[in-house]
């Protein structure tokens, strides 16, 4: 797999667009998910993903080996940071993360899959919604590390490559981000173990 990826990268560096598109197909899901978790909405994530691949193609000559995945995710991270900075200069309202509620239910344009209605599924959906909300509330540096570690499955060393931060900083940001998410889930009583501890008491 690594050899095939290296072959594709080398061919793409020589201008073979189809080889680069093979790399795009390999990583577009991962890049899109990273962008979505950092930006919080689908349209911005799609734009950032496209920009990230275009930027990667244009700067492919600067890739000097190592982990292509980390290099690509770093580019995507920078694109998302640029988008967040632009958003700060010109704030927009995200319908998904508007925070508006009707009763106790948050309003969202996402339509639930009504074909599955078990209680476990409902609880899992609620937990996922709370996680997404909590991620959106994290400082972006903590959010990035949590997403890369717990959603993307990168090691600390790979996260260091993507973020440019040292391992100590990564550990600190990760523990703080997880703790803040834990606080949010506990406030919404969405921690299963919490209920078990309540029952034990």
């Amino acid at each position, binding site marked *: 797999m690594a050899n095939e990826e290296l072959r594709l990268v080398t061919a*793409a*560096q*020589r*201008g073979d*667009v*189809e080889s*680069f*598109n093979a790399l*795009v*197909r390999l990583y*577009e*899901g991962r*890049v*899109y*998910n990273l962008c*979505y978790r950092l930006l919080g909405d*689908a349209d911005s994530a*799609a734009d950032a*993903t*496209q920009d990230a*691949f*275009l930027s990667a*193609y*244009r*700067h*492919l*000559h600067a890739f000097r080996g190592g982990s292509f995945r980390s290099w690509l995710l770093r580019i995507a991270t920078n694109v998302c940071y640029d988008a967040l900075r632009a958003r700060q200069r010109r704030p927009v309202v995200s319908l998904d993360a508007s925070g508006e509620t009707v009763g106790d239910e948050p309003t969202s344009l996402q339509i639930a899959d009504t074909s599955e209605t078990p209680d476990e599924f409902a609880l*899992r959906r609620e*937990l*996922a919604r709370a*996680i*997404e909300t909590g991620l959106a509330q994290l400082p972006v540096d903590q959010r990035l590390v*949590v997403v890369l*570690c*717990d*959603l993307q*499955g990168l090691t*600390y060393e790979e996260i260091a490559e993507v973020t440019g931060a040292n391992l100590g900083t990564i*550990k*600190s940001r*990760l*523990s*703080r981000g*997880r*703790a803040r*998410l*834990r606080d949010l*889930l*506990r406030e919404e009583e*969405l*921690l*299963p*173990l*919490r209920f078990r*501890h*309540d029952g034990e*008491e």
Partner: protein
Amino acid sequence: MTTQPQLNDHDLELLSAYIDGRLSADERRTVERRLDEEADLRLTYEEVRATVQALRDLEPLRPPRSFTLDPAKVAVQRPPAARLGWGRLLQVAGVFAGVLIAAIGVLSVLGSMGANAPSMAVQPTAPAAEPMLAAVPTEPPTSMAEARESDPLTGTPIPQRDDSMAAPSALGNGAEPGAPQAFGTIIASPEVAALPQVAPKPTIAPPAISSPGTVDLAQPTPVAEPSTSAGAPDLTLLLIVVVVALAGGAWLWRRSRG
């Protein structure tokens, strides 16, 4: 309502790294011993672990569309590494040749300016130049510059006088003190005075004196000068041809690469 334990940052970091298996053996044993002894620490650990599990259980989103690049659209934005081919080399070589032509042009101008200095230095030794003047009509001209210089003396027609006037006029004008004096020396020589019909138009002669041909009159070895002055135009012409060929080659190469 239950208690909500709040640990310090160091303990939270230890628990987070413990969940990820990133502690040393000693640190891990210490954490496990504390988990057995401290209820708050154990509760926090289980909550953080549940949070991490919830994160990892989050289903990945499916991209709404494909993000592959259109080869037709990115063809003009080919990575720079791909552009470093023959076309790029030809372009660089063309620029280099152009710079070389400009450098030769500058050097030739500087050379013609420098040629006036020896004529001024020779000026006080006018008697030494007179024998050379006497020899000039007997020697056939070996270059255009020498022919221009010898025309007033031999009385032969000057076919390209307009061209020769153009370049030196900016360099050998009357502002240079050496040129008129050298001309005056030539006219005053008795050999020249013996040819009354040779110099009917003295206004043409002064620019010719400041040309490289004047040096030939003053230098003891005039044979070497014609060879260099004749070689420069040939080299310039050759380089122009090279530049045109390289530019055409680069254009054809880029066109063939699309």
